[in-house]
Structures are given as C-alpha cells and as structure tokens.
C-alpha cells in the first residue's frame, strides 16, 4: 500500500499512471518485439514477445494476436485503476489525513484485528474461570488419627493415598507421604491390593510398592508424591499443586515427607 502511487494533494505532480495506456496500445501488435509495453508486467510482456522470436513471421501471427489481446486487456485494467484513482482524486481527497486507498487499508486492518480478537475470545471461551473439581489443597485430619500403612479414604474424592511408614526409603524416618493415584504409564488409577501390599493398575498391569516405586508392568517411573505439611491447626495439609518426582531426585524435598 505504501508504494502505491498516492493520489496526494492538489499540488502533487500527476502520477505516471496516466501515460501508461498510451505505450500499451502498440504492444497489441507485437510484431516488433523490441518495444514491450513499459507498463506491462514481465510474464505478459515475455509471452507477447515470444511468438515474434521464430524466423517465420507468418505462422505465429495468429497466436500473437490472441496473446496481444490478452496483454491489452490485462494492462489496460491494471493501468485503469491508478488512472481512475487520479481522476477521482479531486473528489475523494477531501480528507486532509489520508487518501482513499489508505482508508481502505485502515478498514481492512481494523476488520482483521477485530476478527482475530473475536477468534481469540472464542478460544478463551473454552477455558472457564471456575471449574467444579476438588481443591488442590485440603486438610486430612490429625497425624494421630492414622495407623501404619496405606490409607485409601481420600483416593476417590481427592486422588491421593496417604501412607504412614515407620521407615521411609528416602528420608530414613517415620512419617507420612501422599502418593498421587495417577499411574505413571498412561494415567489410569491403580488399585491398592492389601493382600499383596502393592498398587496394581487395571489398565495395563503396572505395579508399584507402597513407597510408590514401580516394579512391574510398563510404568516407566514411580508414582508421584504431593506436598504434605502440618497446617497451623495441627492437621495434615496435602497440596497436590506441588508434585515431587523420584526420578528427578525431588522426594528428598522436606515438604515431600512429613515426619511423625
């Protein structure tokens, strides 16, 4: 748009577009290939010139005439636009800010921006501000309420197993950790088999020790642990928004284990 011949103010010199129709007309009979129309765009000019190259001038005369007709029309329309713009320039250029073409550019720009914004808003529509899911942080009662072993009370509602152990493999102390119930293979929920003292995933058969360490099936890594700390009121607070992965050495984090 910037390099279009701007109609400009009344004192601007007349753009060269007015002159282009005149040289185009001879191109209609391109018997002399040396004078392609200056206004004609390159391929059209080349096409017009090609029939004149072979030594037999009579044979290509017919296709040349056809092509010539095309050249005339295409360049004529191309030339007509700026010419029309100049002709209309006086009437349209009442605006002191921009020419007609520039206003159309602004209009297209605004339309594009509005469409993009509407599209983005539609995409945002798919992400609600509130979702009806269990909170990531929740209190699960006092440490004294738990016996040793795997506690399944919060599996269905909150998605964690609370495990109380006398000797943690990482922290070498007695206390609590919270295992997320998501299988590290493809995300199903394993079952705790108390008789075999293991977590077993029904989808593809992955097995995990009560520590969370994987030992059978396709699961590539141990179950994840969630942040577990004591709240101000003495209750255990589990925070699923912070996860600790064994294979990244994160289980050593003090908040991955609650000594008791």
């Amino acid at each position, binding site marked *: 748009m910037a390099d279009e011949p701007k109609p400009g103010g009344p004192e601007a010199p007349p753009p060269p577009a007015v002159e282009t129709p005149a040289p185009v007309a001879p191109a209609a009979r391109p018997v002399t290939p040396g004078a392609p129309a200056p206004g004609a765009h390159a391929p059209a000019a080349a096409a017009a010139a090609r029939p004149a190259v072979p030594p037999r001038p009579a044979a290509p005369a017919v296709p040349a005439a056809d092509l010539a007709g095309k050249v005339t029309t295409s360049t004529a329309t191309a030339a007509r636009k700026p010419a029309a713009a100049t002709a209309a320039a006086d009437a349209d250029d009442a605006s002191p800010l921009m020419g007609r073409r520039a206003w159309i550019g602004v209009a297209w720009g605004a339309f594009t921006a509005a469409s993009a914004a509407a599209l983005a808003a539609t995409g945002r529509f*798919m*992400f*609600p501000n509130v*979702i*009806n*899911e269990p909170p990531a942080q929740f209190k699960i009662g006092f440490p004294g309420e738990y016996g040793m072993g795997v506690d399944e009370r919060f599996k269905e509602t909150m*998605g964690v197993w609370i495990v109380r152990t006398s000797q943690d493999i990482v922290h070498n102390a007695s206390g609590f950790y919270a295992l997320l119930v998501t299988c590290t293979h*493809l*995300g*199903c929920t394993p079952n705790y088999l108390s008789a075999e003292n293991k977590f077993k995933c*029904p*989808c593809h058969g992955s097995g995990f020790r009560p520590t969370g360490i994987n030992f059978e099936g396709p699961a590539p890594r141990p179950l994840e642990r969630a942040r577990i700390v004591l709240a101000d009121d003495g209750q255990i607070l589990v925070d699923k928004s912070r996860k600790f992965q064994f294979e990244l050495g994160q289980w050593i984090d003090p908040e991955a284990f609650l000594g008791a």
Partner: protein
Amino acid sequence: MADTKTIDPQEGALVRFWNWLTETQIWTSIFRHGKPTTDRNRVLVMLSNIFLHLHPVRIRKSGVKLRYTWCMGGLSFFLFLVLTFTGLLLMFYYRPTLEYAYTDIVGLREHVPLGIMREMHRWGAHAMVITVWLHMFRVFMTGSYKPPREFNWSVGVVMLVLTLLLSFTGYLLPWDQLAIWAITVGSNMARATPFLGSEGPGAALLAIGDVKLVHSGSDARFALLGGTFVGEGALLRFYVLHCVGLPLVIAVLMAVHF
C-alpha cells in the same frame, strides 16, 4: 420440454402416467430442464440440483467401475448418513450427564423399542472407520492421490482424522469404565502436544518469568476435557463435539471432497 419425450414406442399405463407426471406444472417447476438426453441437459440436471451438483458433471465410465473403486468412498458416505440418522434418534433418549449417561445407554437397549438402534450406531461407526481406511488404501493403490488430485487427498486425510475423532468422542459417551479409562489414556496424549500441551516440547518456553502460560489448567488437554481429568466437563464437551461440531465440519469437507 415436450419435444424431449423419448419413451414412445408402446405406451403402457405406467409410461403414460410418467409422461403425464413429468409434464405437470409441479414437476416442471422442480426440474427446470429437459430430460437428460443431450449433453446440455445432462449438465443442467447436475448443476440445477442441490444434491447432484456436489458431484462432478462428467465421470469416466472406467472411474466408477466397482472393481476399480471398491465403492469404499460411497460406502463411507452411506455409513455417515446411517450414523447421522441413528445418532439423531439416540439423541432423543441420551442425556450427557454423570447421573444419566450410563443408565440412558442401558435404557436404549432395555427400555426403548428397537433396542438395536444403538448397536447400529456402534457397529456402523466401526464399519465407517474400516471403509474409510480401505478407501484410502484403494486411492493409494490406484495412485489417485497424484497430481492433479493432491488437494483432494489432503482433504481426505483431514476427514480421516475427523472420522477417528468422531469415533474417539463417541467412545466416551456410554460412560462405563472402558470409556472413562480409554479417554483418560487417549487424552493424556494431548499433554504432549508441542507448545499447546503442558508436558509437550516447547511448552516450557511459553512462560513469563516463573509463571507458566501452558499448564495443566490451560493446555490442549484442558480444552478437550473441560477439566483436568475425565469428568462432567469432558462428557459434555465430547457430546457436543460428537453430535454437532465434528459432523458439521466433516459434512462440509465431504462436499469439497466429492
């Protein structure tokens, strides 16, 4: 129009009825062209009919031979129509909520006349996946994807994906254990989407300081499930996509594909 009468020789009652019918004002106002006995009228037949005009006006006789096409595209389209119709009927009974989804599916078998309607939808869906694959196989084997048909092949590939997505979204709707865990496993793949999945490559780059822009609450998987696990939101979203969104898109692409 009257001059195009061709079934002349021995005019039985049926022929006379047909000739009368095709000259009535109602008929001639619906089909505003002569009988397709000339090339011009054949073109008019195709172009002046909303359904026929989706199809090319001229096809080589060799191009419609069953031995060549296996009719797999046509069968896929037929199955799509069957699935649209049976699916529409199922929608009269099925409610996509945690409370009712499973029992409505059971009810469709036990409490509704023609309990095979849901089975027709289910088996039809399996069959459509098969015919679409076979159609693709045939097109590949006959080299029909080569220029100038590259664009149509590409449209077909998109429709293959849409067919599989229709199958995938329909899979969740019975809301049984198989459905829930299959979609759990399947939708976990969306986590690994480049840039748009919370665990996908490049997602970590989209962050402002320590704040991740793409996390489990804002990634492709969330957009699909309407939550962070397969729950109420996922059921509703899959239902809408299955019944309205995907069929609309694939119907438009089918018109292009013909």
